[in-house]
């Protein structure tokens, strides 16, 4: 009997190559091809300027330079702006950049010229010799400046507003006006970024013999890149293959596409007739990839004596950077996911998406949910403080109850569908969290610490995450004559362990050995219908598609095996790759079934002789039935009616130093519900990583722009990502599994969970320790010190007071 793979902590197959240093990331590709060329980009040193003149004459003298392009060298679709990927009716003033700046630059880092040379060193030498004359324009930096609109980022966009969007369920303002109690809050989240350890990169090779373009890109969407490359370069889609190699982390930044370099590299490969590579350096990642998180929110809430929210009105301003290639996804997600596990009967949300002369904003793990969670959870805490009630009691009062699912919010989600939660048990999650972190015992702990002169605080934050968004994913399963099972799905992998988790699904569904399954992701040659990896959707979407495709393949295998074994399909079972008749010795292995599935005229080896025309088949029927195909393959797609909603709750105990204002994490607890788990080890790893990224985002990381639009911390020295010493020494994790009714495996996404409640939970805990409101995140010791000074005149709460 085979052990069930689904739900097992199976060690990862991809580790074998990574640990030996044999991963193949984009910069590792074609390194021994002597014809490979390298590239570098001249990037704008100014946040806002008109380009008066570009002089490349000095570049042409540099030995080893093969090409230098500016916008003037681009023709056809390449000379047009980059695509606006996700249009929306309210995005009335969407703008995208050109592959190389035409006339104007709108952020420090914007690409102006592209150089191709024999190596990166020489390419950088060439870039340093390009002379550009600029006419400075006033830069707009930060939300306040964008709103004030004394200067415009884009001349034809009034007030720097790219979009204004409003959604409402019920009548929030009326509900607030008639509520027994009301509060208003202003809450800010500052700009940050994904910063995966591997930056962006693209390699392209044009094969003149087959007229095919092969592109490798460190992306989250092979099919997305393929579509754009084909369109921009004027190639038939069928002539373009895009392969996502091993990727050193994405976290959202690599879903945006096409980067200018993703187009310029293939164009150069075709033009120069040699393979071309672009690998960005760390500074480039900071100033020319994408950022996220910066939003300012104004909240008005009306509630009753129990803390039940009667009306919630949220207005917010989203800093979109200089262009809007990814549409309004991030603020739309904030708008909708802000609701969390609650059911305010009257909810209104309005946002303005604003241009600034800074790096573009596209999704970063959480993609607007962290901001929404921050707003909702700070509001809940404020209600609790106002009423003098326990903060968990306020949550409980407002939860959607287990018997209310599916719950319809009356809003439209980021997938264009109704926002409807499918399943969850929020009271159970909260009960687990309180136990895990010792919520009810905390006041005793606080008193104990206070007696030692130490200051501690506790916070919690709850979130709901819409995962597994459509439109679809697909899978192709192929059982080969060797018995090996080759599976392809089109979305991509950046470290999530898809090769392992998906193989676990196939092993169980088909009844084959885990070791015999080989998974390929992100290769348009093997599965050209795909969307991409984002929104914690891979396990749900590709997991389901793979399961369905495996089922189809199994059906066919059983049909052929039944014929071969002269048995009935219901009496067959498959285990370890062998089909047998239950309770007998009769069996046939799947490899042989594969042979039989393809009627042959010519045998090419011993095994295939069994399938030749004189060996097998009913001579009175066609060798391949009318509704059948040769081969033991199955293709299927999973397209959900709507997203499936995971949820979680975090709690943290922090200690703040009364003298130095340093912030230490004492305890971190997570309760997590992502339905059924394919590989619990992988899910736990995702939580660990998300929590660390959350700690970074709450206490250390921010993009520090000055008023002239210069990014002051465009390096790892000054953009402070946590080392092991900054993350909690342990994370207590408990799970709940409320399966999703929307997919065959009952799974929900887990990738972004760890990072969503971080700003909220740390703000809550620090506020609890200090006794004054924390309304802006991230927070550093210096900022906490300044807040202490600002609040020095207010009485500090005594430990007995309930906060």
């Amino acid at each position, binding site marked *: 009997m085979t052990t069930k793979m689904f739900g097992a902590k199976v060690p990862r197959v991809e580790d074998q190559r990574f640990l030996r240093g044999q991963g193949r990331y984009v910069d590792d590709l074609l390194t*021994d091809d002597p014809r490979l060329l390298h590239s570098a980009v001249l990037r704008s040193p100014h946040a806002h300027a008109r380009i008066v003149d570009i002089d490349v004459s000095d570049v042409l003298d540099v030995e080893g330079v093969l090409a230098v392009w500016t916008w003037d060298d681009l023709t056809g679709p390449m000379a047009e702006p980059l695509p606006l990927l996700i249009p929306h009716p309210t995005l009335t003033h969407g703008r995208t950049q050109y592959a190389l700046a035409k006339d104007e630059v709108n952020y420090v880092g914007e690409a102006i010229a592209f150089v191709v040379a024999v190596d990166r060193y020489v390419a950088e030498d060439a870039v340093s010799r390009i002379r550009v004359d600029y006419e400075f324009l006033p830069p707009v930096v930060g939300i306040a400046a964008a709103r004030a609109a004394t200067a415009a980022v884009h001349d034809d966009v009034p007030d720097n507003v790219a979009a204004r969007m409003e959604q409402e369920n019920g009548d929030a303002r009326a509900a607030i006006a008639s509520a027994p109690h009301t509060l208003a809050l202003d809450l800010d989240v500052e700009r940050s970024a994904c910063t995966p350890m591997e930056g962006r990169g693209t390699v392209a090779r044009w094969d003149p013999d087959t007229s095919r373009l092969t592109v490798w890109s460190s992306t989250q969407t092979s099919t997305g890149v393929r579509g754009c490359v084909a369109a921009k370069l004027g190639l038939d889609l069928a002539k373009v293959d895009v392969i996502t190699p091993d990727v050193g982390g994405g976290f959202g930044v690599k879903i945006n596409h096409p980067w200018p370099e993703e187009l310029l590299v293939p164009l150069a490969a075709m033009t120069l007739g040699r393979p071309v590579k672009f690998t960005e350096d760390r500074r480039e990642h900071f100033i020319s990839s994408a950022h996220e998180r910066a939003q300012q929110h104004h909240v008005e809430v009306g509630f009753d004596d129990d803390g039940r929210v009667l009306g919630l009105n949220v207005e917010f301003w989203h800093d979109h950077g200089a262009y809007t290639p990814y549409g309004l996804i991030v603020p739309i997600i904030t708008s909708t996911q802000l609701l969390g596990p609650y059911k305010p009967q009257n909810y209104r949300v309005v946002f303005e998406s604003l241009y600034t002369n800074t790096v573009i904003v596209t999704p970063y793990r959480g993609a607007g949910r962290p901001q929404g969670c921050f707003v909702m959870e700070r509001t809940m805490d404020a209600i609790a403080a106002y009423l003098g009630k326990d903060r968990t009691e306020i949550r409980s009062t407002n939860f959607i109850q287990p018997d209310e699912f599916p719950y319809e919010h009356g809003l439209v989600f980021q997938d264009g569908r109704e926002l409807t939660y499918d399943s969850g048990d929020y009271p159970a999650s909260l009960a687990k969290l309180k136990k895990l972190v010792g919520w009810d015992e905390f006041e005793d702990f606080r008193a104990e610490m206070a007696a030692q002169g130490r200051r501690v605080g506790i916070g919690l934050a709850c979130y709901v995450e819409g995962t597994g968004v459509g439109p679809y994913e697909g899978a192709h399963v192929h059982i080969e004559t060797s018995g090996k099972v080759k599976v392809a799905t089109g979305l991509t992998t950046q470290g999530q362990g898809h090769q392992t988790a998906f193989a676990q699904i196939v092993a169980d569904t088909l009844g084959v050995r885990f070791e015999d399954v080989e998974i390929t992701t992100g290769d348009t040659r093997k599965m050209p219908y795909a969307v991409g990896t984002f929104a914690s959707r891979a396990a749900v979407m590709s997991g389901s598609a793979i399961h369905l495709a495996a089922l189809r393949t199994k059906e066919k295998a059983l049909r052929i095996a039944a014929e071969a074994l002269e048995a009935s399909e219901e009496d067959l079972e498959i285990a370890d790759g062998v089909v047998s008749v239950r309770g007998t010795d009769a069996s046939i292995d799947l490899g042989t079934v594969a042979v039989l599935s393809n009627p042959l005229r010519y045998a090419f080896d011993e095994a295939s002789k069994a399938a030749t025309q004189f060996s097998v088949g009913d001579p009175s029927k066609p060798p391949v039935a009318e509704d059948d195909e040769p081969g033991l393959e199955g293709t299927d797609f999973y397209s959900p009616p709507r997203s499936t909603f995971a949820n979680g709750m975090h709690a943290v105990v922090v200690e703040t130093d009364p003298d130095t204002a340093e912030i230490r994490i004492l305890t971190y607890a997570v309760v997590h519900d992502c339905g059924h788990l394919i590989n619990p080890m992988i899910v736990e790893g995702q939580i660990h990583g998300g929590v660390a990224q959350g700690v970074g985002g709450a206490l250390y990381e921010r993009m520090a722009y000055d008023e002239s639009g210069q990014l002051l911390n465009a390096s790892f020295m000054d953009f402070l990502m946590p080392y092991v010493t900054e993350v909690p020494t342990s994370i207590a994790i408990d799970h709940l599994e409320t399966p999703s009714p929307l997919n065959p495996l009952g799974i929900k996404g887990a990738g972004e969970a760890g990072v969503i409640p971080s700003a909220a939970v740390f703000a809550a805990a620090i506020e609890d320790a200090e006794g004054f409101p924390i309304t802006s995140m991230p927070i550093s010791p210096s900022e906490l010190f300044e807040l202490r000074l600002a609040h020095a005149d207010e009485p500090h709460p005594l430990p007995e007071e309930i906060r």
Partner: protein
Amino acid sequence: MTTEQLHDVRLHVNGSVHEVQVPARRLLSDALRHDCGLTGTHVGCEHGVCGACTVLVDGTPMRSCLMLAVSAVDAEITTVEGLTEDDGSAQGRLSPVQQAFSDCHGLQCGFCTPGFLTTITAGLRETPNPTEDEAREMIAGNLCRCTGYQNIVKSVLRASQIQAERGEA
């Protein structure tokens, strides 16, 4: 513009000699990756902060992005590829540190991993039985964005165990 002078550099890497011709400014990280073809050492920042490029120079961990290939001539360099043990098979056997990472799910995207593996290999030679705090200190100079470090700390302790089991302590 004159042609840049190339230096004949003999690098000793993982027990083999690589004779390369590189300009003086070629970083050791690039020389290992592109001139020696050993792409296991990764480049995450080129300013010495992330540690992904860490290799062993005469057994001592150093950032290869902060060294020039021309300066590395008199040293025995070990990269991640050199950690795998020769057991006669084509793949080789995972070293205790490598095996521990697999056992403990100490990697996700794998990009930072080579820098951790070399650092910990040297660290365990110096401190074969680290406490949890010592394990943390051992990896305190390497950045990881995926794992959140919890399982990397576990991997250090597990590696110490495997090392002892294999009698390699």
